[in-house]
């Protein structure tokens, strides 16, 4: 059994399922992210793992022990709250020491552990600071230190960087990853920021409307999304309607309308049970579309300079939505031709 094992967990508020039959398995030492749009039930799932909500059905077990009836204060988890929840009447040292007082350590031992943790989160010498005299980044570090100092088996982080500005967020992402490697604790991070999830985690679960759509490594998620929603949510992507003509063990031939008849590796259709004559979606990332003279003709309707590569919207005949392309080409209004390399096309089941 996995280290954290969630099986068929459901939770409804007022009859509306917020978390719907979720299965999730996380291994020891993993940095795992739960990614999804606002309101999709991420916090609710995290709170059930921490013990603040009880699942309506399903089981949650950590390290082999079923947690359903264990109160929060007896679970081997600690949480970094979305709002940080720093105790306002305690200074930094006492906030971090809060969860250690019960252990009845000697004064020196307590000080040593808190000081070591202050060093880990780079807050050396700030132990005496009052809670209301901390910057956003410092509060975030205190919240992290306070949870980590208890040496939990599983650390839960609810959008820990959400309240920080962009630069600080990027610095903290690097640090968070470094701290996780150093302490070796299993991290479960909730975020709606796909870049954050992609850059930090070993694996990601993409959630939408209470359900988990896909669990995969960042690379897999980007290159092999298993449905339209995931493909849409992770980065930018172009979709084309197509119909399957022929499938063999190695290749699939599809009629992709504007793109003509295309033959792609059948592995690109994934394991969705796509059959002959099925209507499917072909998806391709903007950076995989190429400008080349012998491709589909189009006109650049917008060009955004982004440094080494630029981002373009290309209007092609017979299609209302422009195609997103990243690469190098002329200014707005230029006539171009586009090539869609078959090995880069991903086949997904069409919703209709």
């Amino acid at each position, binding site marked *: 059994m996995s280290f954290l094992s969630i099986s068929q967990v459901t939770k409804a508020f007022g009859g509306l399922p917020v978390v719907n039959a979720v299965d999730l398995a996380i291994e020891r030492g993993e940095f795992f992210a739960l990614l999804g749009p606002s309101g999709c039930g991420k916090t609710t799932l995290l709170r059930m793992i921490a013990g*603040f909500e009880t699942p309506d059905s399903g089981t949650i077990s950590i390290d082999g022990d079923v947690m359903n009836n264990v109160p*929060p*204060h007896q679970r081997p988890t600690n949480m970094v709250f*979305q*709002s940080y929840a720093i105790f306002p*009447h305690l200074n930094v040292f*006492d906030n971090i020491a809060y969860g250690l*007082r*019960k252990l009845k350590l000697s004064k020196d031992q307590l000080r040593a552990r808190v000081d070591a943790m202050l060093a880990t989160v780079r807050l050396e010498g700030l132990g005496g600071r009052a809670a209301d005299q901390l910057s956003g980044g410092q509060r975030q570090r205190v919240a992290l230190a306070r949870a980590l100092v208890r040496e939990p088996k599983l650390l839960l982080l609810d959008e820990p960087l959400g309240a920080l500005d962009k630069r600080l967020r990027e610095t903290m992402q690097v640090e968070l990853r470094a701290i996780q490697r150093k302490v070796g604790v299993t991290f479960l991070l909730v975020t709606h920021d796909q870049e954050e999830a992609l850059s930090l985690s070993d694996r990601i679960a993409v959630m939408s409307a209470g359900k988990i759509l896909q669990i995969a490594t960042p690379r897999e998620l980007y290159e092999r999304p298993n449905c339209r929603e995931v493909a849409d949510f992770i980065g930018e992507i172009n979709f084309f309607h197509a119909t399957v003509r022929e499938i063999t063990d190695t290749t699939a031939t599809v009629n992709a309308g504007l793109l003509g008849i295309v033959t792609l590796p059948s592995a690109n259709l994934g394991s969705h049970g796509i059959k002959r004559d099925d209507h499917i979606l072909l998806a391709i990332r903007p950076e995989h579309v190429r400008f080349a003279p012998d491709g589909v003709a189009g006109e650049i309707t917008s060009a955004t300079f982004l440094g080494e590569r630029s981002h373009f919207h290309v209007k092609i005949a017979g299609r209302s939505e422009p195609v997103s392309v990243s690469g190098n080409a002329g200014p707005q209004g230029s006539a171009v031709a586009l090539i869609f390399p078959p090995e880069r096309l991903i086949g997904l089941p069409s919703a209709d």
Partner: protein
Amino acid sequence: MAGTGGNSRTGYALLSPTLAVMGLALAAPLLLLAVTSLKSQAGIGFADGWTLAQYGEVLGRSSYRILFARSVGISAAVTLVTLLLAYPMAYFVAFHARHKFAWLIALTIPFWTSYLLRVFAWKIILGYGGVINSGLLRLHLIDQPLSMLLYNPFAVVVTLAHAWAAFAILPIYVSLEKIDRSLLEAASDLGDGAVRRFLRITLPLSMPGVIGAAILIFVPTTGDYVTPSLVGGPAGSMIANMIEVQFNRVGNWPLGAALALVSMVLVAVIAGLFVTAARAAAKAAR
């Protein structure tokens, strides 16, 4: 800071009606009291010249010292009892009640009736032929009405505690309501069971409300006059009753004034000590 001067001027302008009322209604009578206390009574007027004789009398006589001690003792007991009753009620409304506003109204409805009426109600409840005694007689638990219920410090404490409960519930409720619920969850998350969490987070964070409530009750009850005179009897009479006696019956205004001023200073000192101690206690609860 260029704007500060203008700001403080605006501040004083806004405060000026308040300052005027306070000057007339508070400072002036106090000054009058202070002046009176430095006189001595001669017939129906004051003798010429200034004297500290009244203060010597107030501080020197053991009967006054007993009265001061009893007043402070009774009102400390009232404060304690009220806080112990009010805190759970405020806690319930803040954390567990569904219709908070309705509960607050319901809890304060008894206080919409006049203070005097409530004191009389207790007189009827605790009296020789009162509700408690007739109830106990009816149940044959006693065969003589209890006379120990009324006209003693106990009756004063009960009556005052009831009379002031609403004033304690509201500030405690407000301070409990203000506590961020995620702090409580964080405490549980960090290993605290319900009791430890209450002692380490809820209680310290509601301390401002508790201190406010305590001051709000302790200060006025020390000088209460109506309740001890109606339900206190001789054993339960307090310093305000003695002040009344000096002004109205004995006609020794300077002595009455000195008693009033000394009791004011005493209350202020005790309240100050209490606030300091409570702050320190909240700090110690790590």
